[in-house]
């Protein structure tokens, strides 16, 4: 891994450093498929970057990390350029000071890979309107994470207001294995579902979201209940023909699927690290319409509850 520190620099200097490093390493061909812009604070930088570089093994990318520092200081741009054998792409950490913190897009724009998708990711607090954010506006795909917000439930409920096709949230990504297992359980028809409940750790935004998706697809009221966690622990669906379809997971790794008239079956249902979540997000870059429908449903449910 070659690291280059550039202080008080500009985007064009960073760009030429990247080109120079690539040629020095003897790999002038660019095999990168997208630019990932990560907006994060100094404290979250390390974890976010780790996840991003891991995800880059599946999707070689140019990773731009935008860290906004003290806006009271003089205007300055510091950059750390990393190109190495360990990761297939390129990493640039950008630290913005002074008034520049309000103009991050001016630094990002010249550093985007030509004619390939741009993905913006906020691992921490996200802007209220991701698509209107200067960096979000550059991206075709905007990934937020309601779980990282101070009030995760409120955050996921409010996503519908700002939703623009191309938005997505990690709280939704975390649900894929659950949704996949539930869908597989429904491959053998179970008849009408009368209602149900999703149980999960308190404050976990994925719980209400899963309930919203289920209630939208099954056209039945699905409640949310709190449990000790970790993460989601159980989905119970009350069947019209009697009995319940239950998926429960108490150890965050192995789930049990039970349904009337059938033996219980255990299925791996592990919580996944951020890198895998991110890799899943980067696999499909078209708008996730089902997510859109689900958060709208969630907003409608919350609205009815008089929130």
């Amino acid at each position, binding site marked *: 891994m070659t690291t280059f520190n550039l202080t008080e620099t500009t985007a064009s200097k960073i760009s030429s450093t990247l080109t120079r490093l690539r040629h020095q390493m003897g790999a002038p061909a660019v095999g990168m498929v997208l630019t990932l812009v990560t907006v994060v604070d100094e404290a979250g930088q390390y974890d976010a970057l780790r996840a991003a570089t891991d995800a880059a*093994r599946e999707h070689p990318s140019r990773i731009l990390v935008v860290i906004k520092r003290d806006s009271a200081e003089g205007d300055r741009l510091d950059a750390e350029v990393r190109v190495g054998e360990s990761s*297939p792409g390129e990493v640039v950490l950008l630290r913005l000071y002074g008034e520049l913190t309000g103009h991050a897009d001016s630094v990002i724009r010249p550093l985007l890979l030509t004619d390939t998708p741009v993905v913006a990711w906020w691992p921490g607090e996200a802007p209220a309107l991701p698509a209107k954010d200067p960096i979000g506006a550059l991206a075709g795909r905007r990934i937020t994470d309601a779980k990282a917000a101070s009030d995760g439930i409120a955050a996921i409920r409010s996503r519908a207001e700002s939703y623009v096709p191309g938005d997505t949230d990690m709280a939704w990504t975390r649900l894929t294995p659950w949704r*996949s297992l539930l869908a597989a359980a*429904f*491959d*053998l028809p179970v008849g009408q579902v009368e209602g149900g409940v999703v149980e999960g750790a308190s404050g976990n935004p994925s719980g209400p979201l899963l309930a919203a998706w289920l209630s939208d697809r099954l056209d039945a009221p699905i409640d949310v209940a709190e449990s000790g966690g970790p993460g989601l622990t159980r989905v119970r669906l009350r069947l019209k023909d009697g009995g319940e379809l239950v998926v429960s997971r108490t150890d965050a790794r192995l789930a049990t699927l039970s349904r009337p008239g059938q033996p219980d079956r255990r*299925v791996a249902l592990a919580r996944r690290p951020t890198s895998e979540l991110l890799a899943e997000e980067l696999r499909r870059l078209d708008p996730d*319409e*089902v997510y859109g429908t689900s958060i709208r449903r969630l907003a409608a449910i919350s609205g009815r509850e008089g929130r």
Partner: protein
Amino acid sequence: MTEQQAPGTGATPGETAGAPETGTGTETGTGINAETNAEIGADVSVETAILAAAQAATAATTEQLVAANPLRDPRDKRLPRVAGPCVLVLFGVTGDLAKRKLLPAIYDLGNRGLLPPGFSLVGFARRDWAHEDFAQVTYEAVKEHARTPFREEVWKQLSEGIHFCPGEFHDDGAFDVLSMMLKEIDETRGTGGNYAFYLAVPPKFFPTVIEQLKRTGLAQAPDGSWRRVVIEKPFGHDLKSARELNAITSAVFPEKSVFRIDHYLGKETVQNILALRFANTLYEPIWNRGYVDHVQITMAEDIGVGGRAGYYDGIGAARDVIQNHLLQLLALVAMEDPTSFDADALRREKEKVLRAVRLPADLATGTARGQYLGGWQGGEPVVGYLEEQGISPDSATETYAAVRLEVANRRWAGVPFYLRTGKRLSRRMTEVAIVFQRAPHLPFSTDDTEILGQNALVIRVQPDEGITVRFGSKVPGSAMEVRDVNMDFAYGESFMESSPEAYERLLLDVLIGDPPLFPHQREVELSWTILDPVEEFWASNGKPEGYASGTWGPASADEMLARDGRAWRRL
């Protein structure tokens, strides 16, 4: 519903009656049968039978399921294609294929969340094993060969469904035990009577195994459930034997339930040939005799015959590789665009192009064959084919085969397709190279373009999957010198870990029941029709020419191209 109860309930007593005597034959079998008998005796109430029938009736095709399942939505692309509840019965679990490819591929599918809840794996082999022993074998195979990282919870899920049935193929008792075992698995794991039988055994056992499946009624799917059989190449050794083999399977299984595995078709790069050709506008306009000079399809191996001596001798390179892999590659490269990507449309186009394949008029100059001699391969001394263990010293089996084919249609008339394959060549490499004609006029002096070759588009199948485009470029400097350069698209680079093993894809397709990537019997027969005259010609014309190990094959193969004013690509 009421009609479907009958086979379910009716079959049970008959099977139970046959079981005790057979079960006692092996120590592992006894326990299973005692349990099964107890359960079936006590529990087969009308309710369970109705339930089983209902499950069976509803476990129909994938499309119907998707349509019926309220949680599935075609727009929901995050949800993977997951197979329905089923059992995979693996014959030949002790073989190399099972250990190195199949068992790891099953784990990898599980790790990617693509196996259904309750998925069960039954191993069948002549070993005195208990379920745990087979689980241990699977565990070791997974640990050693799986592509994805080992995760305890995935293993737990998988190991709960692992069963083993000891026995020999001609032993009726063993198959009765198997049949009981599968019924029990349906009860305990909810697999709904859906079984896939994977015959990872030499073809000489096919008739016995298939006859046993027929006898025990395992080949016969009750309404709404499915039974599939998976067979591996070789699909015969000539047209006649291929038909005989097919007669055996088709007497028991309908064609749509027979999945013939050509693992090349499961490779991402091979599937990408279709994407490259039919998802782009860039290549199709030049994909014809107007621009293409010739096509070279190569599968080179650096290894010798090794442990496959018994099978290989008398079969040879052409039957082993050209008949299936290379002709399939040719079909994908040369076919017209299918109307859709469903199995019928795709197979129809492949058949059309295989039907249009023409052999050279003179087989003596239009084909070449060789047999490797001792020598040095990659820095190691190696023995010649005739000195290999298990090979008769006067064997006339070819280890190198090359053939010049033409495709007699409007698109390809006059464009030769050169196919070659061999063992103990310089390196391991499989590729398809489309070599284009030279530019009709070069406005440069001949000196400047002296070393400019022909443009080429190369689909690298293995190793280092990807696509290379070769074209002329100016050498930097004051002179106008034009030279060939390569432009690379490496799969490893752009989509690194998303490239699953061929067997993962194919196994999943078998369990889902998605046949486009499996050759149809008609394709198999057409391929033999192409190859049979060559084999007959060779059989009546002496022995193959020797070539030194670690080189690119016999001189006659080079001469074959030289006569056309061409040369093999140096790989």
